[in-house]
């Protein structure tokens, strides 16, 4: 196949030339009717190792081939592909920002722009996907660093609602949805405060693993209320299955997939006691859970391993828990979990506006003992598995969504430039409000110097 026979996309050349001031003016990725072939690339497949000088091609939004050096893609008959010679550049699957508030929170301190916290302590009926703003200025900013998908969590109360997995480009909520109902979120109350007690909200409006601190009886009662909600949902489901003329309670209905073990329950827990009690509760109620937070998860590794409970480490860039804790305690947590055989992934644990720093959380974990490939998997494939979207995202493999990016280096390195990104095969505009504002004001100084 001779690339010169086919139309080419210029590397780094934006599809649109117009200068755009704000994100909501930046168009979404256009349809891609042709097969796209990325050749002469270093393919970081995550699940299949690193392929040097490989070729990856995708069509109709899906990866169709991941080929080692020398092999030629078998394109569908009669299709003219777009061929990109990447000249040794790197291709990675898009990173996944777990436990995020992307789309629900625009400006943390502006109440009107925060849509993540419904009234009351029990609102499992609320679904994040419904309120995600496809035109949030935050999405393109995250995207520009290779974060191409997110799992957005509602917050507040004990059962804040259901999380949604989304890709970060699309015209409508339907376009964005990867898995609208990823599972309910539970804020498991802590017995007593941990090391970060009293710290001010470092992430206004964002989801947090720092669960409601109650203590003593209040904790027990709050946990019982969560338990009751799941028991009631199960009872309703059993009855309703037998007699569908029964009235529908949308809260029970919302928990049905979790009760049937079709969806995981995302349980926010940091303290050792909190994690252990949540895991045992889930065992007794036959629920599939994911621990979100996991600060003390290494201390109950055996239980987590035995119960096959994965952990979402919500932020590597955190402060140690206790005054006399090792300064690098949060930095080494992923490495320790890895050594102990606990399944985990890494989230940024930060504000929606800082999701672009997700790769750096993983990079720090790598500098502090976690294998570099494992660290990258922790923000791609392993995250996809934990959130139940590995059928579509997280690796470069045949059949997966063509949600990937091309860069001149590894995304852990600050010097790396991300040059192209595709979401479901459509080439994403990597500009954002930030790039356009920078351009606008560089123009100002160019004009000033011209005087």
């Amino acid at each position, binding site marked *: 196949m001779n690339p010169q026979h086919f139309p080419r996309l210029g590397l780094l050349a934006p599809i649109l030339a117009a200068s755009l001031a704000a994100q909501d003016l930046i168009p979404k990725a256009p349809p891609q009717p042709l097969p796209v072939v990325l050749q002469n690339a270093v393919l970081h497949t995550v699940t299949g190792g690193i392929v040097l000088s490989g070729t990856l091609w995708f069509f109709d939004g899906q990866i169709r081939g991941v080929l080692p050096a020398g092999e030629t893609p078998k394109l569908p008959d009669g299709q003219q592909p777009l061929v990109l010679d990447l000249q040794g550049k790197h291709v990675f699957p898009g990173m996944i920002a777990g436990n995020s508030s992307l789309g629900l929170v*625009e*400006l*943390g*301190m*502006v109440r009107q722009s925060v849509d993540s916290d419904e009234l009351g302590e029990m609102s499992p009926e609320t679904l994040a996907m419904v309120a995600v703003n496809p035109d949030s*200025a935050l999405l393109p900013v995250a995207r520009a660093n290779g974060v191409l998908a997110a799992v957005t969590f509602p917050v507040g109360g004990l059962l804040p609602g259901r999380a949604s997995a989304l890709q970060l480009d699309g015209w409508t909520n339907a376009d964005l949805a990867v898995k609208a109902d990823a599972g309910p979120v539970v804020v498991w109350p802590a*017995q*007593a*405060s*941990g*090391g*970060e*007690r*009293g*710290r*001010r*909200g*470092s992430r*206004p409006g964002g989801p947090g693993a720092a669960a409601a601190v109650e*203590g003593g009886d209040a904790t027990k009662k709050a946990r019982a209320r969560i338990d009751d909600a799941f028991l009631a949902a199960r009872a309703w489901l059993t009855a309703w299955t037998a007699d569908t003329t029964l009235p529908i309670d949308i809260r029970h209905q919302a928990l049905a997939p979790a009760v049937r073990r079709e969806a995981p329950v995302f349980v926010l827990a940091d303290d*050792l*006691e909190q994690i252990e009690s949540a895991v045992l509760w889930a065992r007794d109620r036959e629920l599939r859970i994911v621990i979100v937070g996991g600060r*003390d998860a290494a*201390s109950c590794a055996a239980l987590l391993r035995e119960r096959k409970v994965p952990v979402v480490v919500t932020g590597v*860039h*955190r*402060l140690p828990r*206790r*005054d*006399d804790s*090792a*300064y*690098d305690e949060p930095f080494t947590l992923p490495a320790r979990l890895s050594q102990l055989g606990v399944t985990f992934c890494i989230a940024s644990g930060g*504000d*929606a*506006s*800082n999701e*672009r*720093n997700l790769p*750096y959380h993983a*990079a*720090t974990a*790598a*500098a*502090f003992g976690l294998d570099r490939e494992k660290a990258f998997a922790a923000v791609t494939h392993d995250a996809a598995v934990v959130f139940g979207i590995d059928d579509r995202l997280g690796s470069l493999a045949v059949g997966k969504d063509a949600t990937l990016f091309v860069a001149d280096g590894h995304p*852990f*390195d*600050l*010097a*790396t430039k991300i040059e192209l990104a595709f979401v479901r095969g459509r080439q994403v505009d990597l500009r954002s*409000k*930030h*790039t356009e*504002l*920078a351009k606008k*004001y*560089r123009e*100002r*100084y160019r004009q*000033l110097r011209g005087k």
Partner: protein
Amino acid sequence: MTCRAALLFVAVLATLAAAPAQGPPHNGPRPADAGWFALTNAHVVASPGQEPVAATIVVRAGRIASVGSDPPPAGATSIDCSGLTIWPGFVEPFFASDVPALDPNAADQHWNTMVQAQRHALDGALVPATDREALRQLGFTTVAVAPSGGILKGNAAVILLDEPNANTPARIVRRTAYAAASLQTSRDGYPDSEMGAIALLRQMLLDGQWYARCQSALASNPALQAQAPQPSAVLQAIADGWSQPLWFDVQDELQALRVLKIAAEFERSAVVIGSGMEFRRLSALAAAKARIVVPLHFPDAPDVATEAAADRVSLRQLQSWEQAPTNSKRLLDAGLPIAWTTVRLRDRKDFPARVREAMACGVTTAQALAALTTVPAAWLGIEEHTGTIAVGKLANFVVTDGDLFTPKCEVRDVWVGGNRHVVNARKDRGLDGAWSWTEGFPGSGGGPPTLTIASDKVTCTLGEDKFETSGVVRDPSALACRVAGKTLGDGAHWLRVHREGEQLVGVCTSPEGIARPFRATRADAGATPAEPDKKDAKDKSLPPPSLDPLPTPLGGFGHLQLPAATEFAIVNATLWPSDGRGVLRNGAVVVRNGKIVFAGPAGDMPALREGATTIDGRGKHVTPGIIDCHSHTGIARGVNEGGQAVTAEVRIEDVLDPDDVNWYRQLAGGVTAVNQLHGSANAIGGQSRTTKVRFGVLQPDEMHLQGAPAGMKWALGENPRRANGSGTNPRYPNTRMGVEALLRDRLAAAESYRREQAAYTALAPTARAKVLPPRRDLELEAIGEILAATRLIHCHSYRQDEIFMLCGLAKDHGIKIGTFQHVLEGYKVADAIAQNAIGASAFSDWWAFKLEVQDAIPDNGAILHEAGVVVSFNSDSNEHARRLNTEAGKAVKYGGVLPHEALCFVTRNPAIQLGIFARTGSLTAGKDADLALWSADPLSYEARCEATWVDGRQLFSLAADAEKRQTIAKERTRLLQRALAAPKGRTARESDPKDAYWAAEDMTADWCCRTCEGERR
């Protein structure tokens, strides 16, 4: 009696004779009481350190008439004290008492209700009866009563712990002993931070001095009357009481150091009513020659009942708990005198046990007695009246049945100013023993039952039968109790007996009310059974803690000995000098006497002196120590004084917290200096401080970088507008327009202030006498320093309009701004910043956390840099501060700044902005040896900081850190086991307000200006 003593005696009598005339008319016949006693056959410990001496003490009219072996005078009533010991009465130096606050609306009161210097304890409730009795039972005879509440709280009086009544009011030993003070903060107004309290206190003391100077000027020149200050009761009180010592009630050892510094500034003598945790800053307190009233409320063992609970307890908490009983001993060993107090004890009855616990750590009997008598008496200025047993002094004694400091010792009588208060009457010990109940037993069969009496415990057995005994009351010579048992029928039998020789006689009354004569004979004739030693049996107390030196600061990462500034070289490393030389591969750095003596190509390295060490830097990188231009680390008890819109008078340097473990964590991120900034809730905030991360120095103030230019926090936009708080904002300004107006107004005020001060200073001394001195105003003085270009503004700002506004204001006043902080829209007005400020100090990439930062972009730093602005990246967060190297790396990523220039964003540039580049901020010969060694390119996430030096001292290294972790693990294990073995009692919980230690420990919130600063902490 010597002649001198006799004269004194006459004088005392004369005073007392005059006393009745002062009192109210008697309701009925006048009492006539000679008050003439002789305490005979006693052992007298006249003063601390003296051995008990057999003596008779004669008391007459409230005072000690004689102490010696002479037979008692005929007129005195003799009290037989054989077998008893008499000690000087104790002095309680601090008792807080309610005194009505004065009406704040009264014309001559102070505008701030925290200032109540004109109050006097004698106008208040003094000591309630229950407290009087409780204190007396412990042996206290004299108490200093201070008004409670406030910063300058009013005057304390020393009174006798007598029982005043309608005819005789409380007897005053010294009317005004000290001025009571504290650093209390207000819940709903100024000051709401400790630095605010300090500023207010300093201003009040200055005002008092000024008021006094005005008065003397007015006295010598009545023509000045027209300009006289408004009469003020508060300022008058401060002026009048200038010679009194200030007694500060403090909450921790750092606060103790702070108040002592203020006292020294004003040359006032001071006493600190301590927290009990003074041992944690022993050498600093010793250097300050502190006089500390030590409370003995040792903390309860932390809750370690479950693994999860133990996991939440920090090593410092455990150490503080273990070491608290050693506090007195350590202070004494450091050469500091101490007085003891009962304040802060949960239950005053615990006092004797706590005294013994302190003594178990090595406090001697003489030291203990001094802490209760002579030391507090001297500090209160009442040593002429009490503290020892000597002729002429008040007849204040404690009479005990043995050594005061042993558990079995019982206080018999407490004499207060010649009045005897019986605490525990002598009891008939002869009742103790086993008695055979021969007559009046309500049951039958099996011979006489045995009744065993041991102090307050009575048992009654008959063969195998054991009867229930209850309700034991032991009077001086008799005993009453109840006896019940199955074989005795329903109900209890009443028993009331006393001793007649070797028989017990009395009455046994049945439940039906039938009284039978009771008789018992000694069963173990002659043999007194050993008294079961309850105290020993129950005494599961732990062995006293070790007195080994403690690390500074206490906790896992402190030093027993600060690492020395050795001579060393790092060779063959990649250097990032930050002084215009780019990146030097294969370079070397040589450090000697805390300074860099060489930094350059390894080939040019000078020869090392003998004993110098060489560190192989192959594959590694050396950078200057990182400088954080926006830090809130180590600021104690409030980062923001939020009580007013303008708080230029408050100073961060007053509230340094050298114990904050975040200092250590930041060393582990290569940070060696920071700009400690006030929060941003005020248009004009407090004074900032440039501080080196000299974690572990003994004197907290040694952390400050001496000679660094002074700074001040200003703030624009939403925070001073308080736009993000809940509810409406009642305080000006409410708009960006108002912020500008307020700044303009205060600059104008500061200008006139400077003019007035300068005019007065310019006067010849003779001319000065003819005018009233101008008042020194700490707020305007500090703002005036900005106008005089001796203080830099570090201004919190986001939007371009506000940045532009301040540039204009600065230009109008002919001043250069220090830095714009955050300055997230700085990229829009880079030219104005370049002209009007030394630099811009920003976050690398934060945005969208509030409305005013919706246009923040990560290219901000790069664009400003391109426009010629000196740019730094800062943390504003304890967490980010330890990763500033990679924050700098983001300037490469966003905007393409050259790597070595990007590193300058956290080294050279902040140093320039803070005016300390001549000292630090680059690897240049002659500068302070502040540097960091990295495992890889410092701008990459691969880099780990391997070692950090401050002034040539290695204050962090991976090797030392690994060692510390082992020590911490070992110490934790030991202390957790000790806490588990601690006697069962209440366990301390973090949330318990009484355990203020714990609460204070974890108050180091991760403050940050980006978010909630509109609200007060």
